[in-house]
């Protein structure tokens, strides 16, 4: 369990109900570890963007609270530490890329030197004098990202950062996120691309229908699924596993057993099998993709709410 000092973003029972009555975010608790890439994963309309907007201070929560870099989300102090790239990049189409950065730099009281550094970092120095409105989506995103990086924020919030990008753009963005993480920044990104989250994030929160379904390190979420047990004799082994996890959680295959773990430590299972006199031939956690976890979790929520 991480202490508050190790967390860059926290949210407690964060909720947002819009004026039209829609409950977009429902009592979300978030714990984003400092210096990590955290992925907020969920289908379209799950509440990811609303959650991020509340953290940036664009939307006021109707209940609950959140802190960003140790300050109340949306406060002047927290805004100083956050760089956000939201679903729309939010720059002026009639200004050049460089002038857009100049506007942001002036708002934040930054030196012009930072503009050139940021342009170089995103590879846009050559095209910086072109009007922002004439850029491709990928170029617009680079300039918007330069506007974020220029401020050297402790935490970077990215809403669907690869949305609408071509394969090269997606690869560049992934590299950039990894570089940000290497440089010690905390990155909180939202996505509905499971493979993207799996590749760049260390921690994931799965959000569906406004509720946070699960949160934890990617490795734990993937590994928490099931256990493959090859043991002889197989019947007593199955009996032991059923006693631990319940009958419905153990499936007998031809020559092995599959057990849904659901929080049971593997070492306890191993001990129980050995003490019952069963020889263990193989004991391994079944590899699952984040996709399996995601669909399993979201379908569980849907079944519950149906």
């Amino acid at each position, binding site marked *: 369990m991480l202490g508050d000092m190790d967390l860059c973003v926290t949210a407690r029972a964060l909720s947002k109900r819009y004026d039209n009555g829609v409950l977009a975010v429902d009592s979300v608790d978030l714990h984003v570890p400092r210096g990590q890439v955290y992925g907020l994963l969920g289908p379209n309309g799950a509440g990811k963007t609303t959650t991020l907007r509340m953290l940036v201070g*664009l939307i006021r929560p109707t209940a609950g609270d959140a802190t960003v870099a140790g300050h109340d989300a949306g406060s002047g102090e927290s*805004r100083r530490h956050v760089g956000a790239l*939201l679903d729309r990049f939010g720059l002026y189409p*009639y200004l050049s890329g460089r002038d857009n950065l100049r506007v942001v730099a002036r708002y934040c009281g930054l030196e012009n030197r930072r503009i050139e550094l940021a342009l170089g970092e995103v590879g846009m120095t050559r095209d910086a004098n072109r009007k922002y409105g004439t850029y491709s989506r990928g170029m617009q995103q680079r300039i918007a990202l330069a506007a974020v990086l220029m401020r050297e924020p402790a935490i970077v919030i990215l809403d669907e950062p690869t949305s609408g990008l071509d394969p090269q753009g997606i690869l560049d963005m992934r590299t950039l996120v990894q570089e940000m993480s290497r440089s010690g920044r905390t990155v909180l990104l939202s996505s509905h691309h499971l493979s993207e989250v799996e590749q760049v994030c260390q921690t994931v929160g799965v959000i569906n229908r406004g509720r946070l379904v699960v949160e934890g390190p990617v490795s734990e979420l993937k590994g928490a699924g099931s256990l493959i047990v090859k043991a002889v004799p197989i019947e007593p082994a199955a009996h032991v596993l059923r006693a631990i996890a319940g009958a419905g959680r153990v499936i007998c295959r031809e020559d092995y057993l599959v057990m849904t773990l659901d929080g049971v430590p593997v070492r306890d299972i191993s001990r129980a099998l050995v003490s019952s006199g069963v020889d263990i031939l193989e004991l391994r956690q079944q590899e699952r993709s984040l996709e399996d976890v995601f669909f399993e979790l979201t379908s569980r929520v849907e079944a519950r709410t149906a």
Partner: protein
Amino acid sequence: MIETFRAEWLKTTRRPALWILLGILLSVLVFFVYLPGWWFFAHGPHGLLPAGTDVQQLKAEYYPRLIVPHFLSTMPSLMGAACLSLGVLSLGSDYAWGTIHTITSLPPGRLVSLAGRLTVLAAVVLGLDVFLWVVAWAVAMTLAGIDQASATGPPLQQMIAAVATTWLIGSMWCSFGVMLAAAFRQSVVPLAVGLLYLLVIEGLVFNLLGSMGGDLVRELEKLLPGPNAGALIGAFGHGYVPAGVQVPTALVGPWHAAEAVAAYLLLFCTVTAYLVRRRDPS
């Protein structure tokens, strides 16, 4: 605050819409307010004018001595419409482009960035105002030179008061535009609503009702921004009035009018600040 002002200044002065509005006002001033009238009185068929009209007096309206009443007889309403559009576009476009998200998520905060925006708009309106007065002065000097008439202008104090008046009225309409943009969180509807109110409701409906008489209408007019702006302008007097033409009496005194316009400016800014602070940008 200074940094916010600089940021707002950069994006406002680089905006093509500002220069288009300025171009429109400049064209109207030169090619509608000054040149056609002067040409008509200098060379036109004077037989079309009512009997007893003093053409020389009418021509003198285009010379520097009467620049204040001549400018104020036409330009304030056009400037009001332009300033209202400028105010709407300034904030409304930020909602349309999503740039309001960028600004709101930056350190200065909602109210500081709004204060920077309003200060820049006030400065831009002043620049626009001074520029139009300078152009009017240059055109009037040129016409007086062509006609070999006196190039003497009005007293400096009157000129300064007139420039300040048009700036105050322009700023009021501009802040009205910003307020509408904050209320509707876009630019198309507030532009339509604002211009409809300024040009149709105040410009036509109340004028029509006012001309039909009725104390209630007159009392109501005293409360509205447009008639107060009109009363303030009216305080500068008027040019030559041909015999038989009646000049409408002012609704309120100049100080009352100036206070009302300034109060409206303050009210629009306060309501905008309330809306921007209280409501989410999307």
